[in-house]
Each structure stands twice: as structure tokens, then as C-alpha cells.
């Protein structure tokens, strides 16, 4: 699996195929049993401290310190990244993900979608060079999903941020990603680009769907 700078890379696969495990290995949270991993030219297992300053992740199922206010939550994680965020900074980060005037509310009062947005705001705190997102649109309503899509696209265009998205929602992939890998049975069954021509996008979607099904079916037959 190779991801180039400024890619929005879709990491697809059915449940239990190893997507989350791979992302955790890439972030250095888990150690690989075998094989080599290099992220930004560094080994996530041995150079974790340096690497974590440059990357961030939105895990699939992530808990929150429910007693914290949203602004306080961002300030807490900001300090762990060496940032001293002011109230204005926190409000700005929350506005970026569509949570206006939510900085003084305890996180336990948030809906699932709002929590997901706070999680994304946290993942963007250190302005990462690579952003790993594990099922980022989980729990979001259609507008929320569209907002997150727009945010990710603008981050990619304006800052050149490399984004790796693990998902099985093909619509997210079709809208966001320029390259994809399909993982099944802990092996990459397919890795390639998505066509960018608008006229061909409709075909791409159905093409992506059939590629996805073919890859996962192939894995089952094997």
C-alpha cells in the first residue's frame, strides 16, 4: 500500500477485514506481527513521538471525557500537542466543523453526530500532514456528511493535507478519494486510482461498486 503526498486515499473493505488494525499500525498504536511500515519516512513503532506530532487520527469508536466542555476538550488535547489554545481558537476550531457556539457545552450533552464533529476538530488541532479517518461520517446526517466532505476536500486542496479514509461507504469514497485500496481477508485485493472526469463519475461509482464486490467475493472464494 503506497500513499502519495496530498492523496485522499480510500481504504475500503468489509467488516473485520483489518482496516482499523492497519490504521492503528500506521499510527504506531499497534505493532505489526511482520512486514514493514513507513509513514512520512519514519517507523511508527520506533519513532512514535516525532511522528505523532505530524499525524492525527479520528478512530472509529472513540470515547469522550463527557464531563469536559467542548472547548476544554480541545484545549486539553491541544496542550498535549504543545499548543496553548485560547477560547477564540477553540471556537474557531469548532466552527470549522459546524459546531457554532458549542464550546461552553459539556460533551455528554452532545448527539452522536456532534461528538463526531468534535472528534474531527480534535484530529485537526495539530494541523497534521497526514490525517487518518476511520469511518469519519458515521452517525452524521446527510448535511453533516456533506459538510465533512467539503471540509476534507478544502483541507486537501488548500493545505495539501494527505487524508487516508477507512470506510465501507462507497459514496464517501466516490466523492472524496483519488486513490483507493480494497482490503479483504487481511490482504490488499485491489489498489488503484479513481477516474476524475465528471462524465465518467457515474460509471466510476458503479465501477467502484463492482470492483469492491468482485474483490470481496474473490476473497471469499479463496
Amino acid at each position: 500500500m503506497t500513499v502519495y503526498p496530498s492523496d485522499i486515499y480510500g481504504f475500503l473493505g468489509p467488516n473485520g477485514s483489518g482496516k482499523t488494525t492497519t490504521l492503528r499500525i500506521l499510527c504506531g498504536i499497534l505493532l505489526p506481527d511482520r512486514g514493514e511500515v513507513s509513514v512520512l519516512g519514519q517507523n511508527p513503532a520506533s519513532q512514535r513521538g516525532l511522528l505523532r506530532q505530524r499525524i492525527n487520527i479520528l478512530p472509529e469508536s472513540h470515547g469522550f471525557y463527557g464531563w469536559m466542555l467542548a472547548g476544554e476538550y480541545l484545549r486539553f488535547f491541544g496542550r498535549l500537542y504543545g499548543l496553548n489554545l485560547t477560547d477564540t481558537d477553540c471556537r474557531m476550531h469548532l466552527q470549522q466543523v459546524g459546531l457554532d457556539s458549542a464550546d461552553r457545552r459539556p460533551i455528554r450533552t452532545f448527539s452522536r453526530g456532534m461528538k463526531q464533529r468534535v472528534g474531527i476538530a480534535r484530529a485537526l488541532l495539530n494541523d497534521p500532514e497526514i490525517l487518518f479517518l476511520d469511518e469519519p461520517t458515521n452517525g452524521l446526517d446527510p448535511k453533516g456528511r456533506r459538510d465533512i466532505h467539503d471540509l476534507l476536500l478544502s483541507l486537501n486542496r488548500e493545505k495539501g493535507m494527505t487524508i487516508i479514509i477507512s470506510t465501507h461507504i462507497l459514496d464517501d469514497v466516490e466523492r472524496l478519494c483519488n486513490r483507493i485500496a480494497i482490503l479483504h481477508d487481511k490482504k490488499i485485493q485491489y489498489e488503484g486510482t479513481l477516474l476524475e472526469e465528471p462524465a465518467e463519475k457515474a460509471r466510476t461509482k458503479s465501477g467502484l461498486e463492482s470492483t469492491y464486490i468482485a474483490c470481496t467475493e474473490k476473497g471469499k472464494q479463496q
Partner: protein
Amino acid sequence: MKLMTLIRKECIEDIFSSRGAALYLVGCGVLSVFSLLLVSNTELSLLDNAQAVYMMAGIIMSLALLISVIRGSDGFAGERDRETLELLLITPVSAVDIGIAKLMGTFVSWLIIFLLSIPYLWAVGSTGQNLWPAFIYIFIAGSFLVLIFGGFMLGLSARMKTFKEVLSIGLTLFLLSASPVILGPSLRQSGIGRLIDHVNPFGSALNMIDSVVVDSQNISFQLPHLATLTICTIFALCFLYATTRRVEL
């Protein structure tokens, strides 16, 4: 700054959470019941004041041990259960720092329990001997116990998957450590009883307080107990360091 941020979070979580408040309330309840018994019960009120302070010290040491076991078990395993550990592990903060912050949080909980226990100790021992040395040695012994058991339990929780698993081991350890008290004076004089008394930090802490408060012995008599406590503390902190160098989900 990062370590202080983590310590602050641990303290706020421990002190202002409903679980933290419940623990202090239970602590105060236990201390109230025992001090009331020591003052009002006909037979217990006949005890020498120093003996009463020693009995209260045993209760305070047990509370220190209980706090360490519960907070230590919850340290990493609780965060894992609540799915917040991954968020901490992906930050540039080392897991060793997270462990140290959690141990400091446990220590602050102990400080609060110690401060809460002062009026009770005063109530049962103000007219007797050695109350001030009792305060000092209870604080020293309790601090050692919190570092030993808190460090050990945090180390276990860094490696074991769930809070329940770690807590069950912790409570077993709690019972084993309290065995000098359960054994009673005659069994403690047997070979095994003495051995347990010597290697067990809880036993050493109680013996040290007994020696200071009841027997009025000077510091030279406390050196073997202090040595046991220091060695156990070093072992516990090394264990914590070794287990938190690499924490996985």
C-alpha cells in the same frame, strides 16, 4: 506542560466525578463509624488513646490501599473500556507520562483522604501521646502504600484488557496484603506470619505506626520498615515504567 495537563485532568476526573465523590463519602463514613465506636463504645473507650490512634491508622491505611487498587485498576484499563485510551496514545505524550500522571492523580486522592482523616484522628487521640508523630508516620506510610499499590495496579492495567480483570487481581492482592491484620497477634508470631509481616508493605506500614504510636520508639527502630517500603516502592515504580513503555490497545 504536557505532564501537568495530564495530572490536572486526572485530578479533576478523580475529585469532581461522582465516583470520586462516592469514594470520599464512603471513606468519611467508615472513619466516622470507627471513631464513634472508639469514643462511645464502653469496651473500646477503655483503650489507651495511642491504641485508638493505631486502630484508626489501620483504617486509614486500608483506605489508602483501597484507593490505590481502585484508581490503579481503572488507570489504563478503565480508559480502554471507555474507549478514550486510543486518543491519549495517538498524542505525542509517552505512555510512561500517562502512567505517572495517573499515579499522581491517585496520590492526590490519598492526600484528600489523609486531610479528611485528621479531624477523626484528633477526636480519638487528642488527649493521648504521640499524636503528632502519628500524623507524620501515617502520611509517610500511606504515601508509600499508594505509590506501591497504585504503581503496581497501574502497571497491570496497562497490560490487561479490562477494568474488571485488573480489579479482581487488585482485590485479591488487597486481601493478601491485609492478612497481617486478619491473622491476629498470635499467628503473626509464627514463622509464616513473620515472613508475611516482613515482606508485606502493608504489614510494614502498620508495624511502623505501631512502633511509633504505641511503643514510642524512635526512628532507628523504623528503619527496617522504611527499607521494606522503599524497596517495594522502587520495584512498583520499575514495574510501572516497564509495563507502560509499550502500551497497546
